[in-house]
């Protein structure tokens, strides 16, 4: 596996040019665009090309699934609610500081 730097997939490049080897060529190109793909921000022809690649490249398919799961987990990361007593105490502190000067 090489950390090969390649040009970003350009509009119009042929799906048949994909090489399905982990960490190489179009797998690396794909990695650069995964968030845009997940967020549905890419042109339809590039999305089509990526989907075709994913169908034939288990490594990329697994990688994108784990990235999607990461985003979903982030969205659902719990936050403890603010206590009512803290809400009151902070307001008092803010106004105290604001009026002190």
């Amino acid at each position: 596996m090489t950390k090969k730097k390649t040009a970003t997939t350009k509009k119009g490049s042929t799906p048949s040019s994909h090489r399905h080897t982990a960490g190489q060529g179009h797998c690396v190109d794909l990695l650069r665009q995964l968030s845009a793909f997940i967020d549905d921000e890419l042109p339809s022809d590039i999305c089509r090309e990526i989907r075709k690649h994913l169908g034939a490249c288990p490594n990329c398919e697994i990688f994108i699934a784990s990235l999607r799961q990461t985003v979903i987990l982030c969205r659902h990361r719990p936050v403890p609610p603010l206590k009512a007593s803290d809400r009151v105490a902070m307001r008092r502190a803010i106004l105290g500081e604001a009026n002190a000067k």
Partner: protein
Amino acid sequence: MRTPALKTAPTSPAAQEPDEFDKLYRDHVDLIYRYAHRLCGETESAKDLVQETFLNAYRGLKDFRGEARVSTWLYTIASRACIRMRRKRKGEPQHELSLEDFVPTSEGEFRLQIPVDGLSPEEALQNKELRQALDQAIDKLPKKYRMALVLRDMEGLTAKEVGTIMGLNERAVKSRLHRARLFVRRELSARGITNHDGHPSEGLRS
């Protein structure tokens, strides 16, 4: 949560600030606390950040013209305050995340998974190890990447809104977001997280 912009700027600060501030605080303190907690990762720092944010908002209320949503204005104040506070406390170095660092270098690394199959996100996050791993991964992110991730993926803002808050163009926001997601994905999948039954999750150990 979306809030409408204040329609008019206060014309008599001395008379109007307390009432306006009370409404501002009442309507937005939970939002800003949640954001602060997501940025800071713990309660005391989050409370400090909330206080700093609303103190600055109080002082700036008379100048707020309603050109942005109130929530966007507060997010912006909180983000700047967070950067100032963290810089003051830790002097933490800010390193860049390179995309090259996230290119898997082995078949096994490519195929690492996060053990959430068949579970809702809420169920998956009941796993303490997974939750801690997620918290730690986010905490380890350099703050400019963490901020983009929190605003976009947790607060649910658009890339354009995040750009307004962080003073970046959309392209830069998306770039930071992508690197942040790849970082968290790698941190999560590289750890050995056990299932509820205490056995190592499949897919985490290749």
